[in-house]
């Protein structure tokens, strides 16, 4: 059983949301680093 007594398959929606937030931050960071490398 996942947190809040939810089945994992339903709780997965929260995991996807968390993963999406991490994806956005990581993509922005990678893009920034790539841009700086291209600039130098």
């Amino acid at each position, binding site marked *: 059983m996942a947190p809040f007594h*939810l089945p994992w398959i*339903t709780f997965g*929606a929260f995991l996807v949301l968390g993963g999406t*937030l991490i994806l*956005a*931050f990581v*993509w922005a960071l990678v893009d920034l680093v790539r841009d700086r490398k291209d600039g130098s």
Partner: protein
Amino acid sequence: MIVYIIVLVVYLGMLAAIGMVMSGRSKSVGDFAIGGRSVGPWVTALSFVAAYYSSVVIIGGGAFGWKFGLSTLWVGAGNVLIGTTLAWIILGRRVRRFTENLDAMTLPGFFAGRYGSAEARIFSAAATGLFLIIYNVSVLKGMANSFEVLMDLPYWSGVVISGVVILFYTSVGGYLAVVWTSFVQALVMIAALVLLTFMSLQKVGGMTALVDRLNTVDPGLVNTPGVWGWAGLISFTLIVSLGTWGMPQLLVRFYSIKNDKMLRLGTVIVTVGASVAMLPYLTGAIARVLVPELSSADQAIPALTKLVLNDWGGALFLAGVVAAGMSTFAGVLIIISSSMVNDVWVNGLGRTLTPAAELKANRVMSLAVGVVSLLIALKPPALVLVLTAFSWAVIASTNLWPLLFGLYWKRTSPKAAYWSMLTGVAAALLWQAWPRLGWLPDLPAGLAGIHGFVVGTSVGLLVIVIGTFVGKPAKRECVDKAWGSR
């Protein structure tokens, strides 16, 4: 009642003031249609959220949560991952660069430049324009219904109050007024949704108590896909998530951002802001426990609001719902007017207008389209109400693949792009109309729950891929210009 009036008057007055301020900054067609490509990341990102989530999403999402339970959280997660973050990462930069290289201010204008295809421009402008008006009617209807339930105002007055304010600031201030008001509206909408969720979670006893209580009503309200079933859940999630990739009122945010480096910060802001997509579904499920006896699922959110919020909270929530609707309506209005003037009148019919006359034509057109939408929304004919259910399917089936392939596959054939639009729309419409056409055999039970969007986009995808392999690619100069290599 007096509290509602105070909050709304202050709020609507502020929007009108933004329209007045921005009118001085809309000096050319480029300013009016895409804000002169000068908008920063915060305003771009939050106005994207506001244009994406209309009052239909808040009230309708709550209704889905009430009816189908917590499996609907997947719709919210799909909105954030596919409809927002991946859209920004995959489409953002290329749309920004290509539209600047091609000097395109509209999506049909992009098709004309990228493919050198006048027929793709006209078809996209006509199909998108028509179905966006129908979509706008549903947005106005959603706002008026909220006024009706939360303030006991007659339906027509809700249509007129919200319609007139939007028409004013859009026709006067153009795109800049639309994005700046949308920015404010996104903040109001997010605050309202967070407040309602917090208060209703407290009332129900927390998240674990909610799950336990839903389980006693029906375990299908806690499981995925639960009472909804996979066909309905996946179809709906795709249409309201992947569908956004073909929606011009959202894509225009990429044309208008100041430069493509700003998309970086914008992607982070928009992902955080869009996360509120989960909340209408969650509060809808809470409403199933707290207000189980409703004559219609659409009453779930208004009824919950009345139960858990005081007058000030209720007024803020109404402002949030109205904000969601207004920002979507205004965003659509500016898209239709610039498309009708630039794609149909000037480029399609070959009429020459001076820059000043073109700007004036855009203002008049936005006013005219708004008035038409408003009049239809006052008493929507039955056909319009039927069509609103698949306006997104038609618009996305028209634009999704020709845009994506046009950005990533140089070889994509103009004929294939055009036929992908045509067959995608035809397939989506035929699929949706199928149950109403008595002379066709009934669909098998497993297929009946699939939305026309899935059928339309699948057909469109097949046609564009096969057509590109057998057809001729676009002219070299069109491709080079789009990619900025000449």
